[in-house]
């Protein structure tokens, strides 16, 4: 009964996370980070490692939640813990080559699938990040404002001092084409 209640609460938190509710994110973060920190420190990791690994796990959780078809079967804590463990295991293995896997790192939940699925998305994210990083200003900000922050062309024109929205729009298209080119060049070679 208690476990059931816990899962119900966890599912609510997850719904909140999917809706980008800051409160849910904060709850999840502050409740689960200490356990992961402890685990990473125990396995020869640093605090920064713990932060990276944990945030990666949260991103996975977030994207799963956004897809909408994610069904939480275990407690959120268990899920995050095993995902973190798996990520850290992979990191340690790739860094030190043949590193003996501690027996207590053996999986309790099949987190491997989840983590492997994530690697494609991570790749896309990295390509987009580098593309964004290399187009320079003001393109970056214009595109971010329009496509991500969903600001209107009017606002953007005022912010960047364009005489009218149409000019800003033309600039935006130019930027978008450049970004697309940068993105797809890398995307197609990497796949």
């Amino acid at each position: 009964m208690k476990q059931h209640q816990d899962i119900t609460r966890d599912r609510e938190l997850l719904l909140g996370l999917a809706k980008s509710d800051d409160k849910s994110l904060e709850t999840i973060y502050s409740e689960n980070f200490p356990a992961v920190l402890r685990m990473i420190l125990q396995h020869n990791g640093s605090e920064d490692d713990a932060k990276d690994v944990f945030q990666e796990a949260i991103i996975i959780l977030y994207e799963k939640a956004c897809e909408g078809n994610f069904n939480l079967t275990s407690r959120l804590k268990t899920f995050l813990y095993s995902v973190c463990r798996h990520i850290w295991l992979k990191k340690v293995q790739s860094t030190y080559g043949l590193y003996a896997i501690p027996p207590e790192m053996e999986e309790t939940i099949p987190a491997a699938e989840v983590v492997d699925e994530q690697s494609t998305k991570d790749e896309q994210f990295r390509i987009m990040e580098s593309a964004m990083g290399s187009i320079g200003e003001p393109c970056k900000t214009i595109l971010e404002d329009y496509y991500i922050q969903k600001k209107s062309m009017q606002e953007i024109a005022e912010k960047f001092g364009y005489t009218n929205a149409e000019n800003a729009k033309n600039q935006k298209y130019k930027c978008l084409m450049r970004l697309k080119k940068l993105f797809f060049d890398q995307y197609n070679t990497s796949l």
Partner: protein
Amino acid sequence: MKDDMNLLREIERYLEGEMSGQEKAVFEELRKNNPQINRQVEEQQFFLQQLQHFGQRQSLQAKMDHIHRQLDMPTLRKQAQEENLAAKRVSIRRRTITNLAAAACIALVTSLSTIAVLQNAAKNKSTAQYEDVRRVLNNIQRSQNALINDINNKSKAPANPGTYGGTGFAVSGNGYIVTNYHVVAGADSVYVQNNKGEAFKAVSVFEDISSDLAVLRIADSMFKSQPLPYTLKPQNAKLGEEVFTMGFPRDEIVYGKGYISAKTGFNGDTTAYQVSIPVNPGNSGAPLLDNQGDVVGIVTGKQTTSDGIAFAVKSAHLKRLLDEMPKDKSMKKEMARKSHLEGLNRLDQIKKLEEFVYMVKVYN
């Protein structure tokens, strides 16, 4: 360049739903006929999705960084370290305890099994393999029988049936009987009873502990002397020679047949034979006779580890003992020169022998 930009603008308008119905229909027609444009539309869709993801993820990352900065890292760090230390200590302690316990268990098992093995070996050597075949009498049943006998016969037989029983046989006509020492050891009084049921009081006149033999003399006026039909064979019996015995493993005389299976007795004892013959408690002191009806040995015990192996003191040894006996015991050396049983068939031999084999009852 310009065319591309126009196309992009068109695509964006199409995707954002800014086109009017007619424009949309035209564009969809175009999309259907021109695969290149179609591909660009899909590309744009995919790209926008990617951009969306990128944005979401970036904002999430920013939020998380913000939260992370608000965490009380020093406290968390301290907690984690303490917990890890505690876990390590516990696991070390647990490991030590497990090892110690395992070592203790092994030590215990080793010492216990050593003790068990040693004790077993000691027992095997002294008692387990060798068993006297004197009989512990069944007190209650026998005492009832004896009581009835007492009332009916008013005989002089003691009411108490005795504690131990064995067998003995006459070595002289005037009432000297040989049995095993272990039968009469520690006895208060000894009675012998023949196959007719007549009991006589007897006293032990000579004991030889080393060869486990005792000589009894019947001290009873009722006893009538009669000549012996057999002799003590002075030579050793041959290996494989057929022998038979008569004894009292129960209240009735019991006949048993076997053969000499070795020329030495238990643990290489040269004064005894190993005999393959069925013996039971009560057979101690029974005579071992050969086909001619000469006494070749006295049954003394059997090996418990294997069935059908008994031991008997050699008659030559008995003869030597009798010769060494103090002369003042006035034992008549009137052993027959030649066995009267030779040439008789077994049934007749037994019939004659019965009278000279006694049940020895010991009271203490």
